[in-house]
């Protein structure tokens, strides 16, 4: 049995080894859980929209709630112009949310606890938002780095700070999700280790903590998916409407 709290994050290949050049692209447990995540979302939406009725059943109600939640989030933070990006934000939110929730099942694997996965998502958003901004505003999108009403003396400093903060967006977006998931899961396993080492007499206290922490982790799993999606909306808002 695994004794190190970090062994849960191990990625190993299942099935045959596939290699292209120096890159190992074999099917791993990480890819398996990504497939499970996408399959769960697809099955849920296919089943819930099978019988479309005016008075929704339980499944349809849940699907409509998710739809309205994301639609409201986008219209509140990024306005009406962000409507075309609704499918992207919805898939992003659901992928992160379901990946986090699948990771809460014992002995499963959390896809989002690896920085390479979250960084790929965040970097894709960063590139996409930058391209949208340049298409929408042309070269004047660079005004984003020059806030209005700043004295000319401070301007060289402010522009540098704005550029650095813009470039660090993908890093902070990805590290936030990855660190939250990894820290939470490590903490759960550490408390699980306390239960085993304290035995039948003293193990009840960390067991209670473990139960409480599992509840907290489910909250965090939802919250981080929400924050990931809402920050994407905020970045999109910056690209669509130049406020500065």
């Amino acid at each position: 049995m695994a004794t190190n709290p970090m062994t849960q994050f191990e990625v190993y290949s299942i099935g045959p080894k596939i290699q292209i050049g120096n890159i190992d692209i074999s099917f791993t447990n990480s890819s398996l859980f990504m497939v499970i995540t996408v399959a769960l979302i697809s099955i849920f939406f296919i089943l819930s929209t099978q019988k479309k009725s005016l008075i929704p059943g339980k499944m349809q109600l849940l699907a409509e709630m998710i739809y309205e939640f994301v639609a409201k989030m986008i219209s509140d933070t990024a306005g009406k112009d962000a409507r075309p990006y609704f499918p992207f934000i919805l898939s992003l939110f659901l992928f992160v949310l379901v990946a986090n929730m699948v990771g809460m099942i014992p002995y499963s694997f959390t896809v989002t606890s690896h920085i390479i996965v979250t960084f790929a998502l965040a970097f894709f958003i960063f590139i996409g938002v930058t391209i949208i901004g340049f298409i929408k505003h042309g070269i004047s999108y660079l005004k984003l780095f020059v806030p209005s009403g700043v004295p000319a003396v401070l301007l060289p400093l402010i522009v540098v700070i704005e550029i650095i903060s813009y470039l660090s967006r993908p890093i902070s977006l990805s590290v936030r999700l990855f660190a939250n998931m990894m820290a939470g899961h490590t903490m759960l396993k550490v408390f699980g280790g306390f239960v085993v080492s304290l035995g039948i007499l003293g193990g009840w206290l960390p067991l209670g903590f473990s139960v409480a922490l599992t509840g907290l982790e489910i909250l965090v799993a939802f919250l981080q998916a929400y924050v990931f999606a809402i920050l994407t909306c905020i970045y999109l808002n910056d690209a669509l409407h130049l406020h500065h």
Partner: protein
Amino acid sequence: MELEAAKMIGAGLAAIALAGAGVGIGTIFGNYLSGAMRNPSAAQKQFPNLLLGFALAEATGLFGLVVALIILFAF
């Protein structure tokens, strides 16, 4: 052996960042609560902002934790 000890001390120091996150989360929830007590009708509308602020504040502390883990496992 000295390097090993220095790594342990460095990782412990990096975990101090979590104190700042604790202060930040406390400030956010405390101010939300006092604001909600003064004007309960406006509280529901600000709940998403509360969650956003909570997640942003928590993440800064976790950056410190990531630094600690990098020191421990990546070097």
